[in-house]
């Protein structure tokens, strides 16, 4: 068997239904066999978008109607997103997306072509040491030297991407290895003696956590992205509701509790709301679940000292890194909720000590930069959008002020997908392609800025080619709004003087541009909310250029 056929068969064995990518000479043998296979290939217009699409695809796994969702033991497992590119510049084009998946712990496998084995190290045409370049941003990587290793490597790569703390795995295959003859035997199991992640929390530690929660008067759950990775959303909701414990989220954790729940106090952090941040300050017991408490969420961890801090994370290295917990628990979120619930009474508090409606204190941990006393027209516009969207709507947000505004949209059973850790501009449009490839019927909206949109607008062609019903809102302030804001906050008041450019982008006519791709579009200058209805009701791709 050809090694590229072995690669394809291995991917089929892993249940792969879709691959996003961009071809090139060094990965041609694989693309040749991919063409006639059961796997659907999406040709993006830039490699990074393939990685972002794989990211969006992986993150919606487990939802109803999603292609490639696997079920193991009655529980849906996370689908690994797959992207592929050629050697050199092609592989390097995937790097921003690999780093993005690493920062947000999203399971993807990136497959790259490499120059011929004999040419490795000779600075051949389109040769890049992608293994070396990607090393800081991958969970693991493989340079395939022996074609017989392909099935084992693919098996391990998919296991590593989805097990424990999820993340990207890279497989780099020299073109001659892809063309070589090999044996095919797909391994049943993975045998990695050096990798045994802890899934189940220590019983003694969970008992300590239960005792602390019972003894507390004002416990607060801080839900992070791990709640989604662990498919623990419904468990968290049941737990919070039956115990009457309020919940705040990090940006990655948005959607873990319904925006309609009175227990949902909102998002913490420098871009969060004061209700949520005040709650951190007022609570006596903090239960961090699948949240790494990074500096954007908890900029002043020292102010939390004296509180009981329970920190649950699947990655031991996250515990004690940013905050020092009093009760550290290495565990999968799902396992934690199951074991913790068993140790608590059916109902802990008759009423929650804090709800979304009431303000209890003016004290706050820090100033939130994005709260204005009065609702801005954009906030009002998005508030209306919150009312209009279907309960399962997935918001795919880019990076910048558009992202912060979008984070205020009230989700019920939807998700908020964004590049939380790396802040990769151009993420949203690529990720939306992944979401819609996983399920064309998925209610979803890409919210991006004029900056991030221009980094990714070539993907309008992908959307058109595959007739994806992509709903896109550009929050268009004709500039790099957040860069401007941070400059002002840093005391660089004269943007023109402090920067090489005035940060206005000289935008094209986005409506005309979309139309040139054959995509329906309109420019909204007055926040007219009828435009939102037209966007949501459109059966095909639709772009709203909202000038603010």
């Amino acid at each position, binding site marked *: 068997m050809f090694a590229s056929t072995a690669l394809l068969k291995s991917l089929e064995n892993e249940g792969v239904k879709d691959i996003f990518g961009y071809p090139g000479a060094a990965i041609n043998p694989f693309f040749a066999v991919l063409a006639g296979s059961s796997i659907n290939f999406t040709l993006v217009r830039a490699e990074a978008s393939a990685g972002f699409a794989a990211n969006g695809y992986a993150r919606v796994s487990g939802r109803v109607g999603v292609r490639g969702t696997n079920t193991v033991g009655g529980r849906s497992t996370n689908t690994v997103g797959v992207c592929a590119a050629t050697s050199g510049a092609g592989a390097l084009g995937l790097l921003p997306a690999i780093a993005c998946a690493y920062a947000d712990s999203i399971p993807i496998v990136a497959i790259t072509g490499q120059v011929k084995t004999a040419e490795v190290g000779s600075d051949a045409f389109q040769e890049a040491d992608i*293994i*070396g370049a990607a*090393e*800081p941003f991958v*969970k*693991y*990587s493989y*340079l395939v030297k022996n074609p017989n290793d392909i099935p084992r490597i693919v098996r391990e790569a998919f296991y*590593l991407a989805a097990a424990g703390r999820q993340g990207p795995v890279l497989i780099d295959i020299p073109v001659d290895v892809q063309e070589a003859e090999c044996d095919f035997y797909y391994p049943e199991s993975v045998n*990695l*003696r*050096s*990798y045994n992640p802890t899934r189940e929390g220590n019983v003694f530690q969970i008992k300590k956590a239960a005792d602390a929660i019972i003894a507390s008067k004002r416990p607060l759950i801080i839900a992070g992205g791990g709640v989604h990775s662990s498919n623990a959303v419904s468990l968290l909701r049941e737990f919070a509701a039956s115990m009457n414990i309020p919940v705040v989220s990090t940006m990655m954790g948005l959607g873990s509790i319904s925006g309609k729940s009175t227990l949902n106090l909102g998002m913490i952090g420098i871009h969060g709301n004061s209700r949520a941040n005040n709650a951190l300050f007022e609570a006596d017991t903090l239960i961090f679940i699948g949240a790494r408490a990074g500096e954007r969420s908890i900029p002043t961890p020292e102010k939390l000292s004296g509180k009981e801090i329970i920190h649950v994370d699947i*990655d*031991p*290295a996250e515990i*004690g*890194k940013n905050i*020092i917990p009093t009760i550290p628990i290495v565990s999968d979120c799902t396992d934690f909720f199951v074991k913790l619930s068993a140790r608590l009474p059916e109902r802990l508090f008759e009423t929650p000590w804090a709800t979304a409606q009431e303000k209890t204190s003016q004290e706050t941990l820090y100033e939130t930069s994005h709260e204005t006393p009065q609702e801005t027209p954009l906030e009002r516009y998005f508030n209306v959008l919150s009312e209009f969207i279907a309960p399962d709507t997935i918001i795919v947000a880019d990076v910048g002020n558009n992202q912060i505004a979008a984070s205020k949209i009230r989700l019920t059973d939807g998700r908020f997908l964004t590049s939380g850790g790396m802040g990769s501009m151009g993420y949203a449009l690529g990720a939306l392609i992944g979401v819609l490839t996983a399920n064309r019927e998925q209610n979803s909206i890409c919210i991006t800025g004029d900056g991030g949109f221009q980094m990714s607008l070539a993907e309008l062609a992908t959307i058109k080619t595959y007739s994806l019903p992509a709903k896109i809102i550009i929050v268009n302030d004709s500039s790099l709004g957040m860069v401007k804001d941070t400059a002002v906050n840093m005391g660089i008041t004269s943007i023109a003087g402090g920067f090489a450019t005035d940060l206005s982008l000289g935008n094209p006519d986005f409506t005309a541009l979309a139309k040139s791709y054959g995509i329906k579009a309109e420019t909204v200058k007055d926040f007219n909310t009828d435009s939102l209805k037209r966007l949501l009701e459109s059966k095909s791709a639709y772009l709203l250029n909202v000038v603010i």
Partner: protein
Amino acid sequence: MKRIYSVLVENRSGVLSRIAGLFSRRGFNIESLAVGVTETDDLSRMTIVTDDETDSPERTFEQIRKQLSKMIDTVRVKALSPIECISRELVLMKLRGDAERIAAVCEKTGARVIEETAETITIEIIAADVNVIIKAFEEFEIVETVRTGVISLQKGSSTLM
């Protein structure tokens, strides 16, 4: 304060660069790193010495241990303080100076002359802390120095596996 990490890793290409990269990108200080195969062909063993002069080195030491453990190629990690270990480092030094005097210093410090030529004398030093002994030879002209880095085993019958 010093901490010694004994790390058992899969004997594969790229592992050393992964471990070295981890230290550099997370801003951990490596004082020395020694690596070689073990009694089992597919395992290599590293001894990594770190030094942290800050007031609270424990948090850094714990992060280093956790980050090392997290690496997929890492089979086992143990962090030990120098007093819990039997440690050795080998130094080769090429010296210029009076041969009799060099021999006398060797006698006093436990160093050994390996090679004598008309122009230079090469010595070896094997010790837990070679720095003191190196100092003793500073009265001569030191032409070249090479050090292996510290290797350590835990005292007593405890092992890494």
